[in-house]
């Protein structure tokens, strides 16, 4: 069976909500049924076959070709299966992802992996603000799974994050790990201002010395036994994180945010 492929015919003028096109919702549908699904685009409702050329049959393996940055909610609450996006993706990619795998070859917009529960998201380009965060007003961001971003991420990555891993090969914007409850964010590149702002627990693992707020206290240099196990868990990823030579277990440990609970930590490679 070949992958169910949606090739975008033209870039729509308005943003489009692609949330109906997820593996578990298409499982028993024919191509004709899938083509007749209506997608919200501004005030309009567009048929899927109006926007996309539809080919293939494997609903558990979806490919979106020529994807554009105004296609929102790709892989919303995906529960098993795989979605590959060739091109950019809009906002709310992998929103509430429950299980399965989503890969994007380009850049992604705001709120990618927002309130993600489990599964795996890989983005070859950059990600916008609020990666793995909670919706505005909500208290719980990402609750599990792994996000790999090969490029840079915007502000507030991991805001209200509760569990799971966010792995960033590039740089992170301001307020990275803000209001974190737990989980791990690893940043190979540079981090912005207000790192870990109001974080309660959780780990920010850094390759470069950050510009830390006064509310983070130095706990000294340490060799931590859990780090080799953490790095070993990245071995299967298609990433620089899988490279054994990038791992380390010797870190400078900073505790914070002392203006909050203060049980979080920033670990900086020594």
């Amino acid at each position, binding site marked *: 069976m070949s992958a169910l492929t949606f090739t975008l015919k033209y870039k729509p003028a308005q943003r489009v909500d692609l949330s109906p096109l997820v593996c578990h919702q298409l499982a028993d549908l024919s191509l004709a049924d899938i083509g007749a699904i209506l997608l919200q685009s501004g005030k309009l409702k567009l048929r899927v076959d109006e926007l996309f050329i539809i080919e293939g049959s494997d609903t558990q393996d979806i490919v979106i070709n020529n994807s554009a940055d105004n296609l929102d909610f790709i892989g919303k609450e995906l529960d098993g299966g795989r979605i590959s996006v060739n091109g950019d993706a809009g906002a709310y990619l992998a929103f509430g992802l429950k299980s399965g795998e989503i890969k994007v070859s380009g850049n992604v917009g705001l709120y990618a992996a927002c309130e993600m529960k489990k599964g795996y998201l890989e983005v070859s380009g950059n990600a916008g603000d609020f990666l793995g965060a909670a919706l505005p007003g909500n208290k719980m961001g990402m609750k599990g799974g792994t996000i790999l971003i090969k490029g840079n991420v915007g502000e507030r990555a991991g805001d209200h994050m509760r569990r799971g891993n966010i792995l960033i090969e590039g740089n992170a914007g301001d307020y990275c790990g803000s209001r974190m409850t737990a989980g791990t964010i690893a940043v190979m590149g540079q981090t912005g201002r207000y790192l870990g702002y109001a974080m309660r627990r959780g*780990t920010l693992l850094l390759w470069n010395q950050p510009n830390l707020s006064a509310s983070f206290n130095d706990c000294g240099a340490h060799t931590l036994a*859990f780090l080799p196990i953490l790095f070993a868990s990245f071995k299967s990823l298609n990433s620089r994180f899988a490279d054994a030579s990038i791992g380390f277990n010797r870190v400078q440990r900073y505790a914070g945010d002392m203006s909050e609970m203060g049980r979080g930590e920033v670990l900086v490679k020594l």
Partner: protein
Amino acid sequence: MIINGVCIDDTFAEAFPMKATRAIITAQNEKWAMICAQAMTGFATSVIACGCEGAIERVLDPSETPDGRPGVAIMIFAMGGKGLAKQLETRAGQCVLTSPTSALFSGIDGGIRIPLGKNLRYFGDGFQVSKQISGKRYWRIPVMDGEFLTEATTGQVDAIGGGNFLVLAESQPQALAACEAAIDEMRKIPNVIMPFPGGVVRSGSKVGSKYKALGASTNDAFCPTLKGMTKTDLSHEIESVMEIVIDGLTKEDIDKAMRVGIQAVCDLGAKNGIKRISAGNYGGKLGPFHFHLQEIMA
């Protein structure tokens, strides 16, 4: 059956169902991993008075351990799951948490999950940190030498305890040398432990005693100094008897360990004073697992 001049008795060892678990201890070097493992499996020779039976299963290469440090695998057996969990937790808390540079990991992925470091985390007094990595939960507990890393749970599985055989020799040094040779070979077999000191028991017991308070007493039929005083099971030339007790995860594991152990004893043979191999049982009425010596060596 006679192998290399050693008579293999037509009898069987009688064993019992137990619950077992395995834990992996790592440390900065093998010396400290071994010290920690020895402490954790200390006073764990027999469930009769120790609450569990435990021993080192084998030394692990750094490539085999979760954190890439030198390690030791230990196994603990108990009559029930509740007792096993209690023993494991107590020993982990007093012997591993306290041991310099140590870390503690699950040695069995499946089975019923029982606490390993799950409750030890409270020692961290609120400073403990949880990390979930590849579906496993770990606890990082701040301690004075740095951080104690422990997996939250390990697996409890059904197992068998009490496999055994007796080595009957012409002298005490010869009996001990034969048992040492057997233990050297048996330690190469996975999934089994020999919980007694050095793997060898010199005080095998029988059920019952003339003293009401005791449920077990010396196995007088195999005591060489009582040959003329009791209904002995020893011929006149036997001067010393030693026993090797085996606990294992499956009957096949114990079979294999008994086979290599008895073979090692027989390799020394009659010319080294080894006369007979026998086994301890209760007439087959108490334990559901029977290990027939001649079948094992056939």
